[in-house]
């Protein structure tokens, strides 16, 4: 029984934390929020040089060739630091799509550039409001040309490569959807940045008008591949959320120790103490569920779909819970622009929707537990 990371892995995590503490300062996180660059290019380059971006990408494709366990810990640190970089879009999603479904040529063409940070990738999936279903996808590819619009696309304004879910071929329902690689700097692709609740990770609307599109994976397999890759990304995202939850809890704890009211530290009041204890409980349950997810991801277990939904539901709630109560513990100061509480609040609510909302993942979890139950019986 070993539900823990190795000492080497923890050492790597420490190294990433030290780097981010130094380089990913509140000023860097706020840049996108205050009209600066849409993402921290220097920080992203630095993470690439440390090998963080390519940590789980094989050496043959320009990566470091370690495992997804290391990537989980990197994700935790990126979440903790609120890093304003497109690692989720480019690595958890784009690189993972290529690894899972790419041809040798596609992997060779893109993975080294994603691992080095030279190119940024993203997944262009959503069209409009509500839970995504195959029917909602109107974007279509004919004769290798993509037409349609995707919105919101995380990091779509800064990405070079989009993996686009679009209609193609004669299949129906899920089988009508295929995936395509589209060069966003090429012809027929336009983009605009969207105003969002969390500008530290930007969102964009992408419009395609006959953009050259190269299929990734088999025709009609797009929905199935996307489900698999989103499960894998959900576990990594859950680690980001747990990192953010822990940091928000620490901020609240530190403030409760520091702030005096009614002649005493506010952390000595049970109303505050119990709120913090409940935040600790949420964060701890989520961390344990994330470790289950990490195990499933690294071992290729058949439990991965259940583990992914479990980690995702648990971590979404923990981060939202800790971020909102962090503001509450800070009182009025927590609602000022100057304090960082709102950065965690923004990120927690944005990540809660990325990859599908909480209710979507709750539904997936029970559907999958039911499937597992039927199989067992």
């Amino acid at each position: 029984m070993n539900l823990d990371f190795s000492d080497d892995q923890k050492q790597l995590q420490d190294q990433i934390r030290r780097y981010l503490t130094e380089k990913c300062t509140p000023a860097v996180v706020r840049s996108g929020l205050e009209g600066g660059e849409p993402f921290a290019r220097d920080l992203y380059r630095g993470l690439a040089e440390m090998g963080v971006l390519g940590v789980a990408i094989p050496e043959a494709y320009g990566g470091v060739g370690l495992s997804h366990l290391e990537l989980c810990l990197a994700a935790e640190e990126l979440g903790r630091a609120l890093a304003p970089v497109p690692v989720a879009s480019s690595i958890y999603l784009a690189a993972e799509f290529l690894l899972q479904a790419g041809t040798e040529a596609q992997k060779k063409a893109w993975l080294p550039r994603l691992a080095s940070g030279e190119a940024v990738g993203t997944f262009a999936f959503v069209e409009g409001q509500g839970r995504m279903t195959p029917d909602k996808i109107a974007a279509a590819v004919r004769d290798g040309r993509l037409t349609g619009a995707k919105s919101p696309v995380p990091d779509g304004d800064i990405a070079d490569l989009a993996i686009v879910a679009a209609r193609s071929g004669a299949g129906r329902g899920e089988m009508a959807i295929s995936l395509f690689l589209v060069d966003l700097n090429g012809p027929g692709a336009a983009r605009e940045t969207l105003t969002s609740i969390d500008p530290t990770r930007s969102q964009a609307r992408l419009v395609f008008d006959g953009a050259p599109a190269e299929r990734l994976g088999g025709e009609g397999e797009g929905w199935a591949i996307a489900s698999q890759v989103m499960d894998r990304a959900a576990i990594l995202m859950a680690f980001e959320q747990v990192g953010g939850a822990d940091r928000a809890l620490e901020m609240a704890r530190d403030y409760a120790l520091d702030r005096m009211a009614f002649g005493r530290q506010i952390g000595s009041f049970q109303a505050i103490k119990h709120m913090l204890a409940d935040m600790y409980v949420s964060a701890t349950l989520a961390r344990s569920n994330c470790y289950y997810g990490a195990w499933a991801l690294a071992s290729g277990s058949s439990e991965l779909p259940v583990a992914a939904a479990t980690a995702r539901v648990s971590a979404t709630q923990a981060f939202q819970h800790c971020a909102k109560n962090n503001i509450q513990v800070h009182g009025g100061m927590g609602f000022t622009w100057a304090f960082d509480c709102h950065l965690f609040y923004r990120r927690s609510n944005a990540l809660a929707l990325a990859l599908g909302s909480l209710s979507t993942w709750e539904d997936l979890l029970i559907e999958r537990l039911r499937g597992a139950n039927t199989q067992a019986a």
Partner: protein
Amino acid sequence: MDFEDTSEEAAFRAEARAWIQANAPKHLEAELKRAGFASSGIESEDPLAAGKAWQKKKAEAGWACLNWPKEYGGGARSPIERVIWGQEEGIYGALSSPLIIGHGMCGPTVMAWASEDHKRRLLPPLASGEEIWCQLFSEPAGGSDLAGLRTSAVKAEDGSGDWIINGQKIWTSGAQYSQWGLLITRTNPDAPKHKGLTMFFLSMSTPGIEVRPIKQANGQSGFNEVYFTDVRIPDDQRLGAVGQGWEVSLTTLMNERLSIGSGMSTGFPELFEFCLEAEVDGRPAVDDSAVRSRLAQFAVKQSGLKYTGMRAITALSKGETPGPENSIGKLVAGATMQELAMFALDLQGQAGVVQDESSPMNARFQQILMRSPATRIEGGSDEILRNIIGERVLGLPGDIRVDKDVPFRDIPTSGRK
């Protein structure tokens, strides 16, 4: 990261499994499997006798109190081996529930504080289940505020050195069938509350002790009141120094909260099974999106507890002490099982009010509903556990206290200001 045993652990597991396979009381298996909540549920024979018989068998083969030293009747095994044993013992472990307080709390306290002679006399029969112990701590005036207890121990005036005990304990599990009790008393009401306490052990057949069962809100009687009227005990039954009782009690309470690999059940597997069967609007309940959302909430709590337990076991397996994350088990499980029971009854509609053989899953959810309020109180209430997490894990300051550094006799109590 893996869920595999080391080769030593696997060997131990195989040995334990083989012995259990050959020796467990198989005739009770069916009853134990459909057991009600919070008891072994044995009805075909006396549950206490069944528990003692199983414990005796284990003791004779060296499987009792695995982590205790051999000279005190234990198995001298590692903490991780104890966890593996628990996993293999499975449903049969419930048979030993009348012995848990003795093994988990009183035994470790005796081991830490009693004389060598007493340890050799008291611990082996405790390990083998021949003698049962109870914990005489809580009082009407001291539950969460344990140090507010008022049961007095006064030196006998005859110069014998004996102590005379007067007062009342409450919420004492198993007092009616215990041979021994671990008793905390107030020996100095002039000292501040935590400093005037002294710990003893005593035979429950000492003259002057009266045990009265408490009828609980759910109709069962697992707890008792214990009255002490001029109960005389010799000074050599004292554990720790006079006035050191609080420190001694912390040994007991720390053991109480150190339930490793907790994985406390929340009732989720049963709820999920029920939702596959039950119907909402003519479809299986599990297909209803509102039901799914609630189920998912319960699922991630159950799973979070399970893997938190596994993280603790991992620490044990590496020879480390599990971290404070272990303190969340009962806090989460208690509240979750209560909400879960209410939800299960809600799905049963108006028929959910019925608690008889027609109720789904042997009326398990009705039982959980009626038992779970106690889970949120016993062994540290939700509020005390949140204080512990806040103060010991997160490092928050204690509450400002009006009863500190005040002689105990000057502290206001209910009905006396």
